C-alpha cells in the first residue's frame, strides 16, 4: 500500500517541480539566490545518495582496504571521470566489487 501512495506522491511532486517555471505566470521572477543555488543540487544530492553505500560499513565509516564497496566505488569514480558512460561505469563497478570480494 505504501508503495502506491509513494508512487502517487512522487508523481505529483516530480511533475510540480518539472512544470514549475513553465506554469508560473510570465511576470513572476525567479529569486536570485535560488537561481544561483539550483545548479549545485544535482552533484550534491547524487553524491549524498551513493556516499553512505560506499563509505559506511555497519553504520560506521570504513576506509580500510577490506571495504570492497569503497574499492569498487573508487574504480567506478575513476571510470566515470574518464569515460562518462553510465553503463560502462556500472559494469566496471560491479566487476570490481566481485573481484575485490574474491581477493579479500
Amino acid at each position, binding site marked *: 500500500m*505504501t*508503495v*502506491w501512495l*509513494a*508512487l*502517487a*506522491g*512522487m*508523481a505529483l*511532486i*516530480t*511533475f510540480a*517541480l*518539472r*512544470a*514549475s*517555471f*513553465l*506554469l*508560473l505566470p*510570465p511576470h513572476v521572477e*525567479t529569486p536570485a*539566490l535560488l537561481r544561483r*543555488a*539550483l*545548479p*549545485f*543540487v*544535482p*552533484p*550534491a*544530492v*547524487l*553524491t*549524498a*545518495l*551513493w*556516499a*553512505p*553505500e*560506499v*563509505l559506511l560499513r555497519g553504520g560506521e*565509516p570504513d576506509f580500510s582496504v577490506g571495504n570492497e*564497496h569503497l574499492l*569498487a*566505488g573508487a574504480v*567506478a*569514480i575513476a571510470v*566515470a*571521470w574518464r569515460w*562518462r*558512460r*553510465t*553503463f560502462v*561505469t*556500472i559494469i566496471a*563497478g*560491479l566487476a570490481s*566489487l*566481485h573481484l575485490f570480494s574474491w581477493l579479500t
Partner: protein
Amino acid sequence: MPFGLVTGVAMVASGIAPLAAILMSVFVFAGASMIASAQLLASGTPLVMVLLATAFINLRFMMYSATLRPHFGRLPLGWRMLVGYLVADNVVGLSAGRFADHREDPAKLEFFLGVGSVIWLVWQAGVAAGALLGAGLPASWRLEFAAPLAFIAMSVPFIRDRAMLAAALAAGLTVILAHDLPLRLSIPAAALTGMAAGVWFSRRPKP
C-alpha cells in the same frame, strides 16, 4: 536505454515489485528518485521522508523548467504541461544545446517533443525490461550495488569546477556525519549544505 535498464534492475534488486517499478516509471519518469525511493521503501522509511527525498533529488528539474521557460513560457497551458512532463536530464540537455545555437528556430516545440518522446519510449522500454529481467537474476550477482554505481556515474560528470566539487564534497561529508539522524534527514541536510558550499565557492570576488 542502458540507464533505463539499469534503473529497472536496480529498483527490483532493492526490493520493489516489477509492476510497481514499471508504473512508477510511467508516472514519475525520474530514474534517480525511483532507485532511491525503492531503496528507502524497502528499508521501511516513512512515506513522508520518501517524498521529501524525492523532492530534493528532483529539485534539478526546477532548474530545467527555468531553462525552458524563455522558449515555451507563452504556449497554451496544455503544451506547457506536456513539455513539463517530458523534462528530463538528457531531453533538456539536447534541447538546450540546440536552442542556444538556433535561438529563433520556429520548430522548437516540435524538436523538444520529438526528442522527448523518443527518449521517453526508449526509457520506458528499458525500465520494463530491467524490472522483468532483474526479478529473475540471482542475488549472488549483487546487483543492488548497481544503484550507488548509477549515482556515481550520474554525479561525477557534474564536477566541472571548484564550486561543483565543493558542493559534492560538502554533501558527501554531511550525509556521512548526519547518517544517524532519524528519518533519513541526512539527504535533505546534504542537499542544503551542498547548495550552500556551491554558492559560497562560486561567489564573485568583491571588486
